[in-house]
């Protein structure tokens, strides 16, 4: 009997695959897709007293992007995220390079392990430690005083954007090192030897060969650091003293304390849009890099 070309829509294998993926998929739909969709819907509705009025409006988005307060919060979050990303990725690159090129193969996972251990400790505690280190009577100040280097504590260490950037850069360092390391590992060492064989200096080889080939890793690092940083809550809360809010703090205030869910949703969705745009931009850059290497 002739089956012909078979069922093209759903093979038995396809059906099994779908059945297998349905538990995590359904969970993701219920816990992620549905709530995000709900928030998107809320963002175009109107805020009522203790309720949400089913009146479609774009006012929330207009407020988000035009109101001075929210605009400055968004802008600050963006600036902090960009600074953190730049600092983290640039500082991380030499470390990744070191482990990839200057460490014996069998020691590499040990070094990586050592680098990632701090990451596995509580983020809260680490942020708190920075508060303690940078504080007016904190570790640095008291240490410098005890060593008689200064008389009065340095007031500029804490409660400002710089402190936040430092804390976040510390927290996300391993996130940046790992993807860069992975892409450096993938570079065929023979390519670099060929470059030098053809007369290039070591620096030029790095600049013309290694760096471009590691770009996918760098771009991944940028995204991995940028995205959570822009939505961070704890650091602005603790290090900023509550006076330098970022997007996450604004959302909390609006959703919970002010009970303005539509506006809070609009800010959240706007943040997601910023994140999405930046991600797409970098993914596009990544594609161009990859294509340029064919």
């Amino acid at each position, binding site marked *: *009997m002739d*089956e*012909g*070309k*078979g069922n*093209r829509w759903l093979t038995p294998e396809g059906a099994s695959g779908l059945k297998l993926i349905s538990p995590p998929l359904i969970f993701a739909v219920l816990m992620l897709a549905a709530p995000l969709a709900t928030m998107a819907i809320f963002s175009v509705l109107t805020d009522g007293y203790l309720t949400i009025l089913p009146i479609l409006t774009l006012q929330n988005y207009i407020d988000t992007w035009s109101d001075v307060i929210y605009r400055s919060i968004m802008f600050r979050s963006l600036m902090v995220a960009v600074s953190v990303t730049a600092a983290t990725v640039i500082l991380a690159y030499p470390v990744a390079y070191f482990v990839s090129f200057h460490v014996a193969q069998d020691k590499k996972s040990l070094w990586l392990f050592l680098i990632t251990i701090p990451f596995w400790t509580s983020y809260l505690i680490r942020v708190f430690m920075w508060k303690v280190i940078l504080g007016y009577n904190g570790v640095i100040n008291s240490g410098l005083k005890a060593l008689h280097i200064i008389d009065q504590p340095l007031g500029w260490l804490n409660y400002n954007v710089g402190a936040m950037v430092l804390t976040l850069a510390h927290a996300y360092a391993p996130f940046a090192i790992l993807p860069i390391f992975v892409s450096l590992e993938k570079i065929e060492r023979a390519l670099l030897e060929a470059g030098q064989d053809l007369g290039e200096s070591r620096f030029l080889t790095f600049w013309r060969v290694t760096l471009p080939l590691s770009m996918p890793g760098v771009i991944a690092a940028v995204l991995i650091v940028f995205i959570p940083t822009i939505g961070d809550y704890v650091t602005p809360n603790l290090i900023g003293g509550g006076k330098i809010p970022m997007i996450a703090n604004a959302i909390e205030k609006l959703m919970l304390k002010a009970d303005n869910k539509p506006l809070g949703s609009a800010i959240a969705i706007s943040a997601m849009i910023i994140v999405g745009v930046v991600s797409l931009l970098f993914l596009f850059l990544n594609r161009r890099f990859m294509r340029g290497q064919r």
Partner: protein
Amino acid sequence: MIAFRGVQKYYGDYHALRGITATINGGEFFSLLGPSGCGKTTLLRTVAGFEDISGGQVLIDGKDMAGVPPNDRPTNMVFQSYAIFPHLTVEQNVGFGLRKDPRSKDEKTREVDKTLALVGLTGFGKRAAHALSGGQRQRVALARALILKPKVLLLDEPLSALDKKIREQMQMELIKLQREVGITFVLVTHDQEEALVMSDRIAVMFDGEIAQLDEPERLYRKPASQRVANFIGTMNFLPARVLSGSAMVEVDVQGLGRVSLDAGQVSGAAIGGMPVVGFRPETLTILFEGQAPADREAMATVEEVVYYGDMTYYDVKIDGTDQQLRLSMRNVFGRPVLDIGARARVAWAPGALVLFR
């Protein structure tokens, strides 16, 4: 033992098997030979039960295998990657399929030892699977399959991952093993030398179809088409014009002149439809100084010399022809090897020609 009746297989729109009809006899060493993508592995897997067929029938021992899963078929397979379970020892691997066997533990252990001896791995029982060399892994895979006493052993390119010397050694061992065990072996390979050495019969496949199914010698001497001829060993071709035909066919061969061929020398299709005659390198001989003139001779210029130690291959161009022909000569002690550019008399045998058109 195994019968294919019009077997069809589609992967979506891709027609992988186009109506395979053939029979594999019990106790024979059978090979499926062909280039990559010809469907030989697919066909093997339909016997094993890992591929469903879109049409036709596959029968083992007369029984239709439609709907029968691999674990219920009287076949066992040696995979191309050997698929040795890395978390088990050699013994545990070989004894893997005996789990449902009702015999006692001691009996099973003895059976495992016996099979290990059969494949030459006595004493390897406790070795960890991941610590084996390629050749050893292959023996474990063989033992693991043979211990279940299948009616058919299926081998998917078992030697392709091995070094040359080990491959040649294993070829001999597989032949011996098959004779000892006595069951049907079906081997898939793209290496025509391998197939010629080991098989009782070979099915040459191109593009999902069987081009020729024959014993090695017939396959070599009388290929069914120019494509098969090209695939098996080396064959020389010269364009020919067919002058007349019926019982005896008159052809005019470029550079060689007129020849009469009998019906047995007429074969199948030529590539591109232009008639050619083919002849194997060993059917040409260089006549050295002082040798008597041959029945049919031609003058040629030596263009390349490839020295192999026991053989020398000469690429020559016969006067009046456009292409190089390869000619093989056994090196005789004391006889010189010709230089490039030398002129030589080449003897050829009319009875060795095969016509394709």
